[in-house]
């Protein structure tokens, strides 16, 4: 079994990381998961959270939000709408994201008065953002 796999983290504006890693912890929409080499092929969407990678060249943590991860036996690519190294994240970033999520929640409440689905989604996004802010505690 291979010890490492190719890991790529790309955002729409640039590619943030491309290296060999031994494991990656992903904030999946249905819960956190850790992917290691020879994982079965899987595509999962992301919720806002922290992505942890662990490899021969050390550990790294990234804040990601919105997008998906594509996992197969030899490689893992994460496409995130917003991604940045965790140590560059400031409280202002988090506040901005929470504010955005809150605005979206309000907008959803306005537009979908009789459909709970989108409102619940927006509420969950907002809760995720707040939890994320508390969790990384910057």
């Amino acid at each position, binding site marked *: 079994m291979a010890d490492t796999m190719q890991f*790529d983290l*790309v*955002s*729409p*504006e*640039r*590619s943030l990381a491309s290296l060999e890693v031994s494991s990656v912890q992903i904030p*999946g*929409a*249905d819960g956190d998961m850790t992917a290691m080499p020879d994982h*079965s*092929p*899987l*595509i*999962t*969407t992301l919720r806002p959270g922290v992505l942890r990678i662990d490899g021969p060249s050390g550990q790294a943590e990234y804040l990601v939000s*919105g*997008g*998906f991860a*594509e996992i*197969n036996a030899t490689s893992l*690519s994460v*496409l995130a*709408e917003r991604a940045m190294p965790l140590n560059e994240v400031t409280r202002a970033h988090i506040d901005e994201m929470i504010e955005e999520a809150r605005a979206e929640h309000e907008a959803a409440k306005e*537009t979908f008065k009789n459909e709970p689905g989108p409102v619940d989604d927006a509420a969950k996004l907002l809760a995720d953002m707040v939890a994320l802010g508390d969790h990384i505690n910057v």
Partner: protein
Amino acid sequence: MPSLKDLKNRIESVKSTRKITKAMQMVAAAKLRRAQESAEQARPYTERFNAVMGQLAASAGGSDSAPRLLSGTGSDQVHLLVVMTAERGLCGGFNGNIAKRARAKAQELLQAGKTVKILTVGKKGRDQLKRDLADKFVGHVDLSDVKRVAYSDAQGIAKDILSRFDAGDFDVATIFYSQFVNVVSQIPTAQQIIPADFDAPEGDSGGTLYDYEPDEEAILADLLPRGVATQIFAALLENGAGEQGARMSAMDNATRNAGEMIDKLTIQFNRSRQAVITNELIEIISGAEAL
């Protein structure tokens, strides 16, 4: 025959024009490098995104419950044309070509009896289409304050388009932009974004069977709106690079023309100066002879 002073003024004015076009050319060259870089950096995201979407669309698109962004509304009566051009002129035929492409499409649709709505991104396209299609305008996105196109700009446009779609304002959306090939060549392109039209996955990627978490349709519903933003972002970047490339070559031509004009005017100036001197000499000599 213009006077010597007139010629001199004219040469000076062409010289300052040349300075300006030369400066604009160099600025465009610097901006082009930056724009090309960001277009290249965005490419991996777009490519992977489209590859995964292609797979998903192929496996889930056939079902009746497929999201409307993928399967369409079942009608193609109302078309939304999103015309993306630059905010500034002086870039050769760049804006004109995109507007021409969009106008041709609009006319074709109108002749087929469809309803056309136009959303313009960038001032120049709006100005050009205003003459004959002003009554079709439904909105305008102004990016003139944006120095460097960010993903959030594309998200804003996408949100606008999606809310119109949700409100049932149109059935089919097409974006018009210029594909950047190289500095001298930009191809005006039309691309349908709603219903989404992804290239079919290639043979090798189709071999892997993916699990989906959550299920395929939930992922599709989550990713399709992002796909609209991704495509718009890619188009904006292509446009940005194309605009600078077009401006660079247009200004290069202008600089060269100004140089030729200066040469011609200088020759004309020297000749008339010579003629004046000869005239004066003749007058002096004939005056001397008369004595």
